[in-house]
């Protein structure tokens, strides 16, 4: 057997979550006493692929054909299950991203595998596997048993640490068998949301709510994020994006993006349960709110009761002095 990890790329590059994922998969391979096989699909340079070696990827299978430059979930599912078959892999690991959500369930059907989406830790038992996932939009954890021989896990971002495990990378190319019928959904155009750091990738988020009053005034969060540095970006609540004060790709929460930064500044945010659903995996939450009874203070680690427009400039000043 082996453990197969599919590492997605973004314009030919890996992100921190790719390294978290390989670290995680390598630990699973150790638990099962077997080897790790890494799969990359799309146009990624050999040098970039070799960066995965630092986290334990030794054997990398590379499927590089222009027809995979955009996502066809039908075709990707075939490629991944063919590689799993060739490598006798029966534990497959993905990052819990949009791509995995499109592909992993299809692979599960092809391989008759039990799929646990959104896991947050290593399995506690290997056979039958027992592993913990988030459930009820972050309000609880579920321990899920996987009884099937083949098993698929998708790992939540920022829930597993990087583990260095220097490995020599050998790259093997693979030509999968796919047909035109696997490309029925046709990609017409790709639009980048922006060149800014994506909310899910930021280590620190400065997030604004309706308490920041208007499109003009809420722009103080840009200033604060810039003062913190390149690992930080801005986010917002649903009403703020509905009002077009902020772009909707910044909307976090149950209906927006689910984030898990190391530090989340909630500025003028009441802390509604649907907002908390998107941020409750943040390591540290800081709240600034004029209302001492705002529910955000129950979720926060540090709080200031006060007017955000008076507090934020002081925070920026103190950050700049660090």
């Amino acid at each position, binding site marked *: 057997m082996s453990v197969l990890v599919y590492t997605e790329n973004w314009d030919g590059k890996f992100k921190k979550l790719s390294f978290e994922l390989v670290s995680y998969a390598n630990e699973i391979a150790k638990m099962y006493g077997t080897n790790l096989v890494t799969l990359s699909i799309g146009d990624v340079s050999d040098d970039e692929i070799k960066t995965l070696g630092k986290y334990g990827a030794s054997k990398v299978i590379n499927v590089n054909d222009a027809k995979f430059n955009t*996502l066809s*979930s039908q075709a990707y599912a075939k490629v991944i299950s063919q590689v799993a078959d060739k490598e006798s892999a029966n534990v497959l690991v993905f990052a819990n*991203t*949009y791509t995995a*959500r*499109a*592909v*992993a*369930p*299809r692979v*599960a*059907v*092809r391989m*008759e595998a*039990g*799929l646990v*989406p959104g896991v947050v830790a290593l399995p506690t038992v290997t056979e039958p596997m027992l592993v913990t996932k*988030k*459930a*009820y*939009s972050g*309000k*609880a954890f*579920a*321990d*899920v*048993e996987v*009884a*099937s021989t083949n098993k698929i896990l998708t790992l939540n971002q920022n829930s597993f640490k990087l583990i260095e495990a220097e490995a020599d990378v050998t790259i093997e190319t693979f030509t999968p068998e796919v047909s035109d019928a696997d490309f*029925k*959904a*046709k*990609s*017409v155009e*790709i*639009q*980048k949301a922006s060149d800014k750091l*994506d909310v*899910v990738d930021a280590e*620190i988020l400065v997030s604004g709510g309706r308490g920041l009053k208007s499109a003009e005034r809420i722009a103080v969060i840009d200033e604060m994020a810039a003062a913190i540095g390149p690992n930080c970006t801005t986010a917002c609540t649903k009403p703020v994006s509905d009002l077009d004060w902020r772009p909707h790709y910044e*909307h976090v929460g149950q*209906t927006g993006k689910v984030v898990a930064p190391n*530090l989340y500044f909630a500025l003028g945010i009441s802390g509604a349960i*649907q907002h908390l659903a998107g941020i409750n995996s943040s*390591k*540290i939450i*800081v709240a600034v709110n004029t209302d001492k009874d705002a529910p955000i203070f129950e979720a*926060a*680690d*540090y*709080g*200031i*009761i*006060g007017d955000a427009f008076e*507090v934020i400039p*002081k*925070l920026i*000043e*103190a*950050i700049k002095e660090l």
Partner: protein
Amino acid sequence: MKILVCISHVLDTTAKISFTDGGKSYDKNNIQFIISPYEELALTRALELKEAGEGTITVINVGEAETEPTLRKALAMGADDAIRVNANPTDAMFVAKQIAEVVKQENYDIIFTGKESIDYNGGQVGEMVAEMLDIPSITSVSHIDLNGNTADLQREMDGGYEKVSCDFPFVASGQKGIAPEARIPAMRGIMMARKKPLKVIEAVEANLATEVKNHTLPEPKGACVMIEPDNAKELIRLLHEEAKAL
């Protein structure tokens, strides 16, 4: 045009949950049940598409008798008929198998699901149905328009959007944007829903691949450390030196 909308019956988003039965299931007392929000948006868009042309909309749920009020609500919103597959929906693969069986017999043009159910947060059922039927699936759809036998869709991806065009049949999972707001049933709709057909069918056999053994609640947070508004500097110091987060 025939559209199928897969509806999950979930606890209200604001519900506080607690677990019973040794942690296996949640306590259903004093809990309101709703159509999971993404399916509500997908159903709303399906109704708009039907109203702009012609066709029928069927809603389906895999669940026990307790889910019927949720299906009736979907009928009150405007769906034409409902199917309940009588089974406890414990595993996504099992649920997908049930839905795929129904689709095989009825040949729907579009099968809508939500991006994820808000209880299990799997986001798996729709794509599994598509693979079982060997048809395309477009995940996290924030926009859909029809154009003859083709649909123009926009799906969210990591860091942007992709415009996709796809012939019928396909599976699409709806998310924020697919419809601006969920439709609220009108009194007339509620009255009519009582008379609309709701068919109950028995489940086909399928293996269970996964099983939830236990639930736990997150560790309660320690008390929030309060800092005076004039002392922003102290907050930054604590974040830097104590929490090591800055």
